[in-house]
């Protein structure tokens, strides 16, 4: 028979707290006072190592090298890590239940529960001055260095140490803590440092003195980041909002000695723990200054949770929390709430007492809520006996009196309870509460199970909750590879058999594990099952599978991956071998070209040369020549290109052109010398144009002949040049020099563009008769326009001229012409 649910209740003013014994610990009496301890949230594991600062009674069995022990909340040893590195200044846990160990020398190690670790360093400052202390939370840490600087890391996945503002202190602080980024206004971590009589708040930008009346010897931030509990040197507990704007409560403990631990129990009471040689005292102080004192025989350790505090003693794991309100409503002595009546009614009903009926009648109106309340209360219950009773009261009994009831809530709770009870089982040892479970999410809970290698339970929970099982299978496969001594074939088959039911599942992680475990062939085989190229390729690279990694990257169509492999290979292999490897892979070759064009032209030259791509080499050389400011250099580059083009019969045109371009450069050099004007870089047309403008008609004509410029083009260029310099005389001479190959309309048009109507008129009569009238119109000569149209016998044009004519006198004349033409 389970004890009465209220047996562990303690009243604190108007509210109840309860202390539930969750486990009798599996470990043998451990002297907690001698250890540095770190407990993970959400009922997570506890890590401990001998504290070398505390006096050590030498015992025979004491090992020379210290060991980090990791226990479950039920005291089951999960892992032990031989510690052979430097002095540990702090330990903590990440959200993924990795143990973070901060070392004095500035290195941070992160251990998974199976004892593997990754590490990173906090940078030069930390190394030089050493780390004296470290505050660690779920996804980051702040370290304090020997010269009182603060270094923060806010993402363990990509740790990037960042120095915070200088707090400006020169002696060790009394204590310090952090407000997590998710709870600050700026969304960046803030550090609170108690020094002298005040507290300094430090972030990335500034350090702000709060100008308080301390000194403060201990502090703790509430789980929601809103409140700060401070312990003053005079023994006062002061609770204030974390922005120091609101005083919440004060309580005098009359103890000058700061407590060993100061922890929040949920968000409304604070637990203080003094570890005195004579006694171990726990004081819980409520929001209105009321308190309870508990005492223990041996040292304890407090692990704050979001909804309470876990108390680890030498032989027990207890949970101290405010009694959840549905539970209080039902079980509080003398409660007359509807849910209490319902619960009571069930008892009467089972004893066949008619009072059951009375109870139900009495709460008819509130029955729905009562049913819900009982379900909720079941969730908060650790004892399976009461869980069952509460569910029965609500669902099996209370619901029957309701017309309609949505079973969803009940079904969900039953599911949740099954999962929670399963993980609370002492062998698993995760004493998770309903509130924690909801916050953590089932997915994360499953992750925690697989990290403890409880794959079967994880699978069952996942399939029970209809959550995808891929991660569990992957982790299982990895664990299997690590533990297995079987041959490659057997393991591979075992894994593939198990995993193949799942169509889309990443094998990369498994293959990586196999590779790390010294089974490269197994790794390659497994990797073949990986559907994601992005995961395949980096691993193949690290496995030295050069060609395969390139092939897989190409298959993916992700050019980024191909580049990744190309660069890796280029760095790793001799150039010849590198080219040989990519030569038969067009995509790789083409991407290399794209990259090299922008970044590494020397490599591109080598590449073209070894692959005998002459035209490409020629093009490259040509392109480079245009970037050369020095003419000699430019010509020599052009000659290289020329030689290469000449080798290919299909590119005689290009060869001819390059030859010309050399000739042009030589010519332009000469022109620059002769005319003291800049010519280099101009095209042939532009060169001719410039000669014309400079009045060098002979030179222009010579270029025309030398470069076989067409008559038409030459005429156009000369025409434009002469018009531009307004050399009307020369223009007229030019027009008469011979019959224009471009006709004379361009002459007219170009003059019109310069608004030289007089000049334009000189050429109109040289144009085709049909074009003349409208050209005259353009220069405003309507009379001439009309005459020409009349000569052409072009009535339509004549009428158009008339329509456009603004002058009434001329208009009259045009009208006459129209009549004449009409009568003809």
């Amino acid at each position: 028979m389970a004890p009465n649910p209220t047996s562990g209740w303690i009243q604190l003013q108007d509210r109840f707290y309860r202390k539930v014994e969750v486990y009798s610990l599996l470990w043998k009496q451990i002297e907690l006072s001698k250890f540095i301890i770190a407990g993970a949230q959400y009922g997570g594991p506890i890590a401990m190592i001998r504290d070398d600062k505390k006096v050590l009674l030498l015992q025979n069995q004491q090992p020379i090298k210290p060991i980090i022990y990791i226990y479950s909340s039920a005291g089951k040893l999960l892992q032990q890590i031989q510690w052979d590195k430097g002095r540990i200044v702090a330990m903590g846990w990440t959200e993924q239940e990795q143990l973070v160990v901060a070392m004095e020398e500035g290195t941070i190690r992160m251990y998974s529960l199976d004892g593997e670790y990754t590490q990173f360093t906090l940078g030069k400052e930390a190394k030089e001055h050493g780390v004296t202390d470290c505050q660690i939370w779920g996804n980051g840490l702040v370290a304090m260095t020997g010269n009182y600087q603060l270094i923060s890391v806010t993402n363990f996945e990509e740790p990037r140490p960042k120095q915070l503002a200088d707090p400006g202190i020169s002696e060790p602080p009394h204590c310090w803590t952090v407000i997590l980024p998710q709870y600050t206004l700026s969304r960046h971590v803030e550090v609170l440092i108690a020094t002298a009589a005040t507290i300094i708040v430090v972030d990335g930008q500034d350090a702000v003195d709060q100008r308080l009346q301390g000194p403060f010897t201990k502090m703790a931030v509430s789980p929601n980041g809103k409140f700060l509990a401070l312990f003053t040197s005079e023994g006062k507990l002061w609770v204030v909002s974390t922005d120091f704007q609101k005083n919440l409560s004060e309580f005098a403990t009359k103890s000058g000695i700061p407590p060993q631990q100061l922890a929040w129990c949920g968000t409304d009471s604070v637990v203080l723990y003094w570890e005195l040689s004579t006694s171990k005292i726990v004081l819980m102080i409520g929001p209105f200054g009321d308190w309870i004192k508990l005492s223990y025989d041996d040292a304890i350790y407090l692990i704050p949770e979001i909804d309470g505090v876990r108390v680890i003693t030498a032989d027990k794991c207890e949970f101290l929390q405010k009694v959840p309100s549905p539970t209080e409503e039902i079980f509080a002595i003398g409660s007359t709430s509807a849910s209490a009546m319902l619960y009571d009614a069930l008892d009467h009903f089972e004893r066949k007492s008619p009072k059951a009926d009375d109870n139900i009648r009495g709460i008819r109106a509130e029955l729905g809520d009562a049913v819900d309340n009982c379900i909720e209360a079941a969730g908060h219950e650790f004892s399976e006996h009461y869980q069952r009773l509460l569910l029965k009261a609500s669902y099996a009994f209370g619901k029957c009196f309701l017309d309609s009831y949505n079973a969803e809530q009940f079904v969900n709770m039953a599911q949740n309870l099954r999962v929670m009870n399963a993980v609370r089982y002492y062998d698993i040892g995760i004493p998770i509460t309903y509130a924690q479970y909801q916050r953590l999410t089932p997915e994360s809970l499953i992750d925690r199970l697989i990290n403890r290698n409880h794959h079967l339970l994880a699978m069952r929970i996942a399939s029970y909750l209809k959550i995808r099982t891929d991660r569990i299978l992957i982790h299982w496969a990895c664990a299997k590879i690590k533990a297995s001594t079987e041959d490659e074939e057997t393991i591979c088959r075992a894994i593939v058999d198990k995993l193949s039911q799942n169509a889309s599942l990443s094998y990369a992680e498994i293959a990586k594990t196999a590779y790390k475990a010294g089974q490269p062939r197994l790794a390659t085989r497994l990797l073949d099952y990986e559907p994601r190229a992005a995961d395949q390729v980096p691993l193949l690279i690290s496995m030295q599978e050069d060609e395969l990694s390139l092939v897989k990257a190409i298959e993916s169509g992700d050019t980024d991956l191909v580049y990744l492999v190309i660069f890796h290979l280029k760095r790793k292999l001799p150039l010849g071998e590198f080219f040989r490897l990519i030569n038969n892979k067009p995509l790789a070759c083409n991407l290399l070209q794209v990259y090299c064009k922008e970044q590494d032209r020397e490599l591109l030259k080598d590449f073209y040369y070894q692959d005998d791509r002459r035209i490409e080499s020629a093009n490259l050389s040509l392109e480079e020549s245009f970037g050369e400011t020095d003419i000699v250099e430019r010509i020599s580059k052009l000659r290289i290109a020329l030689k290469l083009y000449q080798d290919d019969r299909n590119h005689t045109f290009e060869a001819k052109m390059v030859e010309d371009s050399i000739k042009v450069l030589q010519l332009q050099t000469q022109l620059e010398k002769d005319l003291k004007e800049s010519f280099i870089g101009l095209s042939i047309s532009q060169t001719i144009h410039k000669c014309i403008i400079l009045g060098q008609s002979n030179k222009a004509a010579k270029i025309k002949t030398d470069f076989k410029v067409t008559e038409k083009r030459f005429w156009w260029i000369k025409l434009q040049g002469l018009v531009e310099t307004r050399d009307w005389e020369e223009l007229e001479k030019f027009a008469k020099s011979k019959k224009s190959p471009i006709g004379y309309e361009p002459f007219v048009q170009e003059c019109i563009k310069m608004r030289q109507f007089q000049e334009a008129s000189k050429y109109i009569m040289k144009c085709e008769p049909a074009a003349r009238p409208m050209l005259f119109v353009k220069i405003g000569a309507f009379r001439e326009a009309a005459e020409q149209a009349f000569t052409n016998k072009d009535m339509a044009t004549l009428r158009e001229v008339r329509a456009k004519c603004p002058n009434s006198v001329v208009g009259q004349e045009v009208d006459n012409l129209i009549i004449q033409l009409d009568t003809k």
Partner: protein
Amino acid sequence: SKIELFQRSVETPLLYGHFSMSASHLGKTPLDIAKLRDAVRKRLPELLDTVRGKKGLILDPQLTGPLSLIAEISILKDHGVEKIYHLDDNILDTDCKNLIYICRPKLKYMKYIAAQIRKDRQDTSKRIEYSLFFVSQRTMLCERILEEEGVLGDITLGEFAMEWIPFEDDLISMELDNSTWKELNLFLFFSLSIKDGDTTAIHQAAKSLMKLQQIYGLFPRIIGKGDSAKALADMLIRMRREQAVVEEVSSSTSRQNPSLLNSLSTHIDQLVIIDRNVDLYTPLCTQLTYEGLIDEIFRIKHSFVEVDPSLVGTAPAPGQSASAQPAAAPAGASAAVAAGKKKNYALNSGDKLFSQLCDLNFAVVGGLLNKIAKRINENYEERHQAKTMAQIRTFVDTGIAEEIMSQTITDEFNRMLETQQNLVAGVDSNSEVDYIEELIDKQEPIVKVLRVLCLMSLVQGGLKAKVLEHFKREIIQASHISLTTVFNGLLTCEIIQTYGYEHIQTLYDLERLGLFNVRTSSNASRAAYANVRRTLRLIVNEVDEHNPADISYVYSGYAPLSVRLVQCAVQKISAGHAGGSVPGIGLLVNVVGGGSSGTIGSNNTASQNGGQDKSDKTTVSGWKGYEEILKLLPGAAVDEVQTVEAKNEREAKATAARAKRSLGSHHKKTTIVFFLGGCTYTEVSAIRFLAQQDEGVRDYLVATTQMINGNTLLESVIQSTPFDRGESVEQV
């Protein structure tokens, strides 16, 4: 002072971009395109806040435009941005303690950033924190470059997902570089498969389309035409398979952001991928819609148009007065200075007048604007005092239209147009060659010459023998050049002589890209275009610009091939009308041809033709019935149906039900038309025309890698030398 200059040039689009309008004109369709923008808008402050305190923001110059469409400058200021710079090879001398870079993952940017960090390191008194956010995804390649440069440890890397820039409810763009099409196809000449080339853009496109699928659900059907389209479709399918794995790995995050990748979209009926390679004719033609012509003449950048203030005649707006316009621009300051003088106007439906005009043939715009102009003309003199945005807008439109008009009435413009129309219509005439020759002789801009030349080469399957003979004759009469020189060499020779020897490479690349070819003995390609023109009725002779009956109005008689393909796939142009007959080429011609009779072009086709027609139109059946037409065009055809596995079915149904609840059960489906390699404004207008025809039946969403026109398409190919960089070729 350089800093201030840059800062202003960056702010300019933000201040004058009418961001408040650009924010409100989206979100009016069931797809709710505003969602795409809002996600980015939400992310921006988040990433700015990753750095504490005041900060300098350094932006990829290509991203300033897109960003200004998404967030107003006040967001930046509210989150501590004190200075904004453009990311280029200049080392900044800044007193900012925090620098945030936002850029696309380009190698050159990594070099610039590395140079900056190394420079700052020399000054030990400085302690700058650097963050870099890649748009839209970080690449291992860039990380590798940063590592090689020895700065990876100094910089915090992140991502800024901005896959799509929403311009309108029916137009979203990835806004990739103009060179995308070139990059995709440059290697095709030597390789057998598109997949051997630089497929980076295909990969990016696939990622962006995956994002749409995450938001709207899987495209039930993916069809497309062209080798790149095929590669893209394959990649989409592959990614979907891979994505299932990713989602599993990050199950906790996917919980907060549920992805719809395991259910079919209830909004979208299909994705039509048009590979630009299939239709290069269209972009080479001069666009004749209002927006198209604005793009041709002024060039629209990220939906902004830069206009000389004198054109619009407005006085400097408040805040843009003396202090913001330093009189003495330092010598050698870059284009940013010049740009500072011009003004940016956002072209989108936030402007009511513009939205009425943008899709119309310009022939009509003149008259319409005239009416409006008359109405406001009384106030015309007041334009210097114009205060409200709406007033300014009217002047902008009038000013722009006047400028366009002054260009479109010139002989030069009309000769160009006539030449283009003759070419696409297959009218044989010798005048095109003369015309091109004259353009060269007159030293017109090379891009103008190449645009006609490439179009000629494309429609004629290379340049033809008759042209060659003509030239030979000309040559004998007029010059001394030997007869043995091939024609191709001659014309290109002229280009090189006129525009410089660097264009040896330009012409070589054009040839590799298939834009400019010598006609070989095989006549296949020439016949191919003629065939396509006939069967798809690309040329429609009687076009009523005022009451268009067919999409061909956008080019005054030429129907964009790309959009004809969309019509085949989506409207099934023949099936509904011919009532049960086998859909075929001949019928297609009939229906399209009969446009003026009212079957196509009326806004109520569906109701006229009754339910039968409607069901035909709403069913999605891929390319069925058009296989023969597709064979005439280059590249593979894609037709994939995406399905959802049975085990996900329950979930899928639930999602579908949820979607239905939020939308109401009756809603039109949307067809997404994705242009891989760029899309023109005329094509957008043509698709809007289809949307009008299909009103009540389906919506269209145009998605594209970027907006292009013939000039931007060719400019990416035209070789520049270090001496002429910064002019027309280099995009700012």
